[in-house]
Each structure stands twice: as C-alpha cells, then as structure tokens.
C-alpha cells in the first residue's frame, strides 16, 4: 500500500526557501500570492500490516524533525 508523508515547517519557523520561491513567483509576474512555504513529500510503499502507530513512529524518529517540522500521513487507496 502506498503512503504519503507530508512534512512541513511548523508555523512561525522562518522558511528562507519559501520566501525565495515567493520572490521568484513575483519576479515572473504572478500577482496575488500572499505566502509560500516549502515542504517535503515522502512516498512509502508498505505492507498492508504496517500500522498507523508504526508510521507515526517513522515520522517522529526520522522523516520529520519534530523541533521545527510537522507531518501528516495519508494512506493512498490502491
């Protein structure tokens, strides 16, 4: 089964990459963009028996740095 893990910076954590992307969008002439935050999408292919608790632990132990990042787990229907 496919699992998507979205890792994003916690609110309030400065995101220089997001700011640079925002600046570049403005440079391309796109108006109306108020803010940009860059994160990561990590796709896992796991056995059906892998529990939500195990996925949560994977995120806390490695995939996200809980000091500055949040994560969201999404199981993708086959």
């Amino acid at each position: 089964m496919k699992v998507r893990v979205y890792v994003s910076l916690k609110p309030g954590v400065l995101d220089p990459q997001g700011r640079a992307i925002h600046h570049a969008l403005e440079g391309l002439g796109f108006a109306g963009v108020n803010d940009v935050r860059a994160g990561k999408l990590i796709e896992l292919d796991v056995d059906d028996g892998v529990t939500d608790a195990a996925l949560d632990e994977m995120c806390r132990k490695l995939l996200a740095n809980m000091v500055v990042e949040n994560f969201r787990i999404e199981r993708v229907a086959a």
Partner: protein
Amino acid sequence: MSEFRSAVVTFPGSNCDRDMAVALEKVSGQAPFRVWHGDAELPERLDFIALPGGFSYGDYLRSGAMAARSPIMRAVAQAATRGVPVLGVCNGFQVLTEAGLLPGALMRNSGIRFVCRDIALTVENTQSLFTSGYEAGQRILVPVAHHDGNYSADDATLDRLEGEGRVAFRYAEPVNGSARGIAGILNDAGNVLGMMPHPERMIEPAQGGTDGRTLFESAVRGLVRA
C-alpha cells in the same frame, strides 16, 4: 604529556575529518583513532570524540539526519551520556542536534546562500572544557562554510540556553539568521559542544590565524590534567 585518547568519526561525505585529526594530533601530540560510521563501537577509554564537518550522506532528508541514525552514533550517544567530551563542528553540530544530544535545529541560512568566509565570533562562555583558554567576551576569527547554519529553537529553549550559560560562541556579525546570533552551544552537562564555525581550520598561522587552536588546547589541557 600523558595519554590523550581521541577519536574522529568519518561518515560517508565527511570532508573535514582529516583537518580535525590533524588539529587534534598537532595540539595533543597524539594521533586520534579514526572511526567509521558503520562501526558499532568506539575505541575504549576515549578522552575526546570529534564529529567533523562535511555533507554526510549528501545531506539527504536533512543535514545530519542520516548520520545521526548511523550505528556509530549509538556509541557516541552512550559515551556522551557517560560524560565523554564530544565536539561537533559544522555538519557535526547538525548531527548532534539531529541525534538529540543538543537542542534545536540548524535550518537553511536566512540569506539562502552558502556562506564560506572568516567570521568574527565572541566567546560567551569561558567556563567549559572547550573554551577555558579564551577570555570572556574575546573576539576570535574562525571560518564558516555552511548552507544550513541558521540555529533555530523555541524561545523557552533559547532562554534556557542563555540562562544556563550554554551559548559558547555568538556571531559578532550577521551570518545566517541564527537565533540570537548563536554559533555554538553546550549540552546541559557541558561535555558536548556543537558549533558551526571551524576551529580546526585556524590552528596555525599558515591557515590565517590560530584562534581555533585555543579550543583544542583548552580541551587537551583540561582532560590531561584531570
């Protein structure tokens, strides 16, 4: 001088491990053990462990993230808990935060760019094993070379670091957006130091200065006397 047993850990992608080993050997007179990331154990009776700069595991996922979960880091964490001094420089600092041996995180530089130049620092703590040879408030010149040196932690953590005198070095000029100008911090027991600037690159005049040498001299003097 009595025995000084140190070790330098090399991860895949470390590139300052040799500089670190040279600094330790020049100052202590004894070549450090060289340890590989996949080793499960450190040499016995170590006095000092150094995690060098570089781009371990290509900075995959986050700088230092993979290295912090490598087999040798379990042994380093155990040694640190026992009180063995651990110095992490640059990527070594990132590894220490990722491993949870130091609080906070090193984020992308606020100016986006990689910064590689000599930087003025102020020595904030002269009571630690690593900094006893400096004078309080001393300005020193040490190079930085990093993309992710922007120290970040919540206000409570920052206040605690400041209140407990655990900010070892502060940037004396803008560098990377680091919270409160923090360039290096100590753990609560004072035996683990992480810093972005490279003291091992300032140990003899041919390198442009010797301000980094004092750090190694402080540690060697403190440990050999003990």
